[in-house]
């Protein structure tokens, strides 16, 4: 119970910080919109398979940039203060939940922006929303944990990219297959298996993130 209230409190704190420094969230949202626009200018009309690929590539890069600041946003003294007050589990879980929300907003914005400039090729909208949510969860767990590692180094944004991209590829691959389903590019009746696989991978990574995080902040 103590931990749940800590988690809720830390999420509130993150939201408040985000609200006070609005430029960060606006920056990342603008990042998505301008990337979509650059893609639109340089491609023109694109077929659905390419739409699918571009969609997830934009999400991937925007997410890395959105999450990398999780642990570098606040200075180390203040982090030390949090670590004194809160359980490490509460810190990592609150960051993950917060980033799920952030990445989901990113996904939705990306979808809206791409629907405005291109026509939406999505055939099964309810499945597509589910995929967006699952994608936010998978990306959030991986990126949040790796950003905790990368924040300890000086060149954290480069390190973040090279550490996460290979790890996130299985998740990305499954998401692309699922979203090809939602776009009607392939008809796979057994796509629920893919969803279970994705959830299993998320589960493994979340479990490890929770177990390993206490070792990360003990400086």
């Amino acid at each position, binding site marked *: 119970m103590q931990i749940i209230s800590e988690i809720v409190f830390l999420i509130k704190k993150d939201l408040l910080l985000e609200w006070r420094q609005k430029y960060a969230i606006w920056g990342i949202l603008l990042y998505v919109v301008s990337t979509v626009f650059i893609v639109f200018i340089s491609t023109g009309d694109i077929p659905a398979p390419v739409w699918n690929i571009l969609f997830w590539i934009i999400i991937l890069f925007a997410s890395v940039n959105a999450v990398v600041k999780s642990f570098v946003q606040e200075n180390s003294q203040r982090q030390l203060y949090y670590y004194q007050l809160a359980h490490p589990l509460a810190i990592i879980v609150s960051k993950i939940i917060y980033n799920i929300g952030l990445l989901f907003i990113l996904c939705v914005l990306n979808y809206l922006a791409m629907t405005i400039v291109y026509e939406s090729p999505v055939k099964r909208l309810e499945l597509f929303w589910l995929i967006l949510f699952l994608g936010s969860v998978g990306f959030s767990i991986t990126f949040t944990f790796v950003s905790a590692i990368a924040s*300890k180094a000086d060149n954290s944004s480069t*390190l973040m990219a090279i550490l996460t*991209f*290979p790890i996130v590829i*299985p998740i990305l691959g*499954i998401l692309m297959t699922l979203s090809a389903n939602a776009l009607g590019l392939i008809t796979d009746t057994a796509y629920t298996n893919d969803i279970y696989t994705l959830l299993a*991978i998320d589960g493994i990574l979340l479990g490890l993130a929770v177990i*390993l995080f206490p*070792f990360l902040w003990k400086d």
Partner: protein
Amino acid sequence: MKNNWWKILGVLLIIYALLFGVLTPLKPGLPSVYPFNGKSGERLDLTIEGYNTHFKEAKNQRVWLKLADRTMLGKALVANSNNSLKVSFDIPALLPTTDTVASLTLITNNEIDGTSILPSAVFIKQNQIDTLTAINTWANSPLESLHSYEGTAFPYRNVLGETIRNLYYHVSLWFAMFIMLTIAVVYSIKYLRNGNMNDDHRANALIAISVVYGLLGCATGSIWAKHTWGTWWTADVKLNMSAIFMLIYLAYFVLRGSFQDEIKRARLSSVYNIFAFASLIPLLFVIPRLVDSLHPGNGGNPGFGGEDLDNTMRMAFYPMIIGMTLLGLWISDLRYRLAVLRDKFLDRA
């Protein structure tokens, strides 16, 4: 000597597996026949190409064509050489099958080579289908008093040919790599539990050697792919996953390089090693099984095992895995000792 027996064992196993793997011949096989199609009710003259066969030397050579459970004995056998044999079949007008085009299996047998089989060797087209009459008119000559091959040899497979020996090098490298990576994770966990710097050195040394093994595994696989698939690298899922896997461990070294503080470096790279290893499991074992692949062992493609990996091959394959692992552990042990000595003498100077 007492503590080094495993190094000697590893080297001996590798030497044994190399010699046994290269020197053992392949069983006789049938790469191809010509022509590979014909019509029912006509005489079919086939030229059979053999590999490691003894058509000329053999006294008791027989050839069959097989369709479903019916077999037909070939006549007028002429051996041009040990690897080339002419044979004639009188194909009946009706075939015991409901297909318009039937694929027949070719079987040869003699007292030196034993039995060799070429599946789907000849395609015969029939003009009308009457299975019942066909079964009655087909002169069945059952496969009887077959000779078997004497001696030690590896199985002959049509696409693979001699490259079947690559199994000992390509596959055992990946096996050894996995064993070493698993040990590295154990050391990383040990480091996080007790903070002993030596455990981190061990994990680092093991991962370095594993990456080298992985590169060698890619290289041997690439050579094999060139022979069997006709290309050095394809967009096949298992190949891509192994490339991604290399990226993960190369990132591990970049991560290590970006910390000056030794304890911080050890702790963070241990954490990353455990996290990366866990994410490898879906990468190499789950995803390749979900999608189609050329590579054996997934996507409905028969892997090695079953009839391809026979006991003769196991005699070289398993020792090679153990030998490669022991050699890798030895090299990593040397690297580990070097790292410990460096800590002791260089950094404190």
